[in-house]
């Protein structure tokens, strides 16, 4: 198979009738994710008709509208619930869910852990920019302690959630992390998630200079990109590091990959049992 050029992929997978330019700020990581996602989709061999892209509300939630697939921009935090209904209704569809950290972990945290536990075959892409971008830089569940936000003017006093760790604990089949700086790795991980059976999560660390960086006296989005480059350490190396060396950094790559009974397979068994019992007159 010849690998199609990026231009071909972009031309093929982005909508032509959608009015560009997109809504994102200059220097935002979401455009990089959009590129990586469509390249991963193209590489997966799926056709556009086989994919549904679902999102919640926020800057990240605006991603699906640009992609030429069935795209559903839902309510804040609830994207996974809509996706659950879609996947159960049309199991042959590949359903990808794009959420921000507030979307996925604050208002939608309950849905995220239950989706991971249920292990329905969905791909969750959580864009972690450590803030509520769209609403103007308030703190989110992943904002680091001490950071300044529009609702923590004196410094943030709550500890942060590790999204990947939460999903791993809740039972996801695949958990991975990358940053928008490590874009090749991001593309590979997205492809792996698309091919994985079961619930997979890709956490994508991304800069929000407009609403997070500026408040925290970072010089530019370029500085924030450099930071992501330094903070993200391949998991193989990270595992060998001491607690002290790990401080301020996070592991990249596949953090969990396990084979678990999938919800759809189990539900098909339920249907078989129910039909059998009915035919025997037992229910």
């Amino acid at each position, binding site marked *: 198979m010849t690998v199609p050029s990026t231009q071909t992929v972009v031309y093929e997978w982005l909508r032509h*009738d*959608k*009015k560009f330019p997109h809504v994102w700020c200059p220097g935002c990581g979401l455009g990089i994710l959009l590129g990586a996602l469509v390249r991963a989709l193209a590489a997966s061999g799926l056709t*556009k*008709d*086989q994919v*549904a892209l*679902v999102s919640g509300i926020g800057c990240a939630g605006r991603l*699906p*509208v640009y992609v*030429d*697939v*069935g*795209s*559903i*921009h*839902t*309510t804040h935090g*609830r994207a996974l*619930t*809509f*996706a*659950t*209904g*879609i996947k*159960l*209704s*049309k199991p*042959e*569809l590949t359903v990808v869910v794009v959420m921000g950290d507030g979307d996925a972990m604050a208002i939608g945290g*309950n*849905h995220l852990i*239950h989706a991971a536990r249920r292990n329905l075959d969905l791909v969750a892409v959580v864009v972690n920019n450590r803030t509520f971008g769209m609403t103007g830089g308030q703190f989110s569940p992943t904002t680091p302690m001490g950071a300044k936000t529009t609702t923590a003017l004196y410094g943030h006093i709550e500890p942060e959630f590790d999204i990947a760790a939460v999903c791993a604990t809740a039972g996801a089949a695949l958990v991975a992390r990358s940053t928008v700086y490590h874009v090749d790795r991001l593309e590979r991980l997205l492809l792996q998630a698309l091919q994985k059976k079961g619930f997979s999560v890709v956490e994508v660390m991304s800069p929000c200079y407009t609403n997070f960086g500026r408040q925290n006296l970072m010089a530019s989005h370029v500085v924030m990109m450099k930071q992501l480059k330094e903070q993200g350490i391949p998991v193989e190396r990270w595992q060998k590091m001491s607690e002290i060396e790990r401080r301020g950094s996070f592991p990249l790559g596949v953090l969990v990959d396990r084979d678990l009974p999938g919800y759809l397979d189990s*539900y098909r068994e*339920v*249907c078989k*049992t*129910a*039909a059998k*019992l*009915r035919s025997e007159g037992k*229910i």
Partner: protein
Amino acid sequence: MIKRQARLLQGNEAIVHGALAAGCNFFAGYPITPSSEIMELMSRELPVRGDVFIQMEDEIASLGACIGAGLAGRKAMTATSGPGFSLMQENFGYACMAETPVVVVNVMRAGPSTGMPTNVAQGDVQQARWGTHGDHPCIALCPSTVAECYELTVVAFNHAERFRTPVVLLSDEMVAHTREKVVLPHPEDVEVIDRRRPTVPPDWYVPYKTDGSLIPRLADLGEGYRYHVTGLTHDERGFPTRRLDEVQQFYTRLFAKISRQFHYLENVKDYYLDDCELLIIAYGCSARSARAAVRLGRERGLKVGLLQLLSLWPFPRRPVSEALNGKIAVLVPELNLGQLRREVLRVNDGRTAVIGLNKLDGTMITPEEILTRLRVIK
């Protein structure tokens, strides 16, 4: 023709039978008294048919899953009661905005908050109309018997499909848990309406473009029609817009698709209205007491009649207005402090006395209470 057997059913069970007859093939819910029997029976029946049942983590998730399923071509339903209905409101508005067919059953119990979970009330009448934020059209139906539970569930699905909109079935604890003898129609005799799907090839499909009906055709997700769905105001292509002309056109159509069909949506029954001087307007469990009161009153020589409302929203103005003509007085018994009476008052416009009979203690209004009030009025 197969002879249909009479069966002893609960209101909640009849809702499930009605839903299945209407083609329901997706249910997502979260347990809550007094609606749980609907969910339990669905969990037994849907897997037998190879269709989808799922218990979600809360009511927000339940309606979210139903909307997703509705977009993917399913006939989806969820069932809940007060607290869960409150949680569903945001996604309910989404279904209005994205024009997604879905049926939401709210079995009313005494509220607000946890209230009296096992006691009857009719306090969610205005919530059904205005529960979600923003101005929006709404269809709500209200059964008073087990047979009506069956019939109106079928109607609810048909309206949802025909109008591409969420429909509320407003039952109550008394109707839900009453067992009555019903003869269910043969499934083939049930009129079932399906959404209109596009007939043009995918390349020509403009998801929110409409013909004279004002109701756009809905393609199942994943069938080659790639389109965008959003809760933001959108243009004909489904893409977000704030352009004045597009926004205005969108809202106008959203309301007009339902307001134009008021006559079709009106659903009332009348008892002894011909020579009636004292009118009762009632719905749900209170209509049961009202029917009994009319029978007793007639035996005692009182010229009393009942207009029962089976459709609450859009409010059936025309039949209510006609029934009000020439009456000495109108009594509106309901298990709230007058939520429907205010609608009757608006239609009445000073013509006759509109009197409430209201209760909030979790018990039914009795026929004798209605008769006593009527005697006082007379």
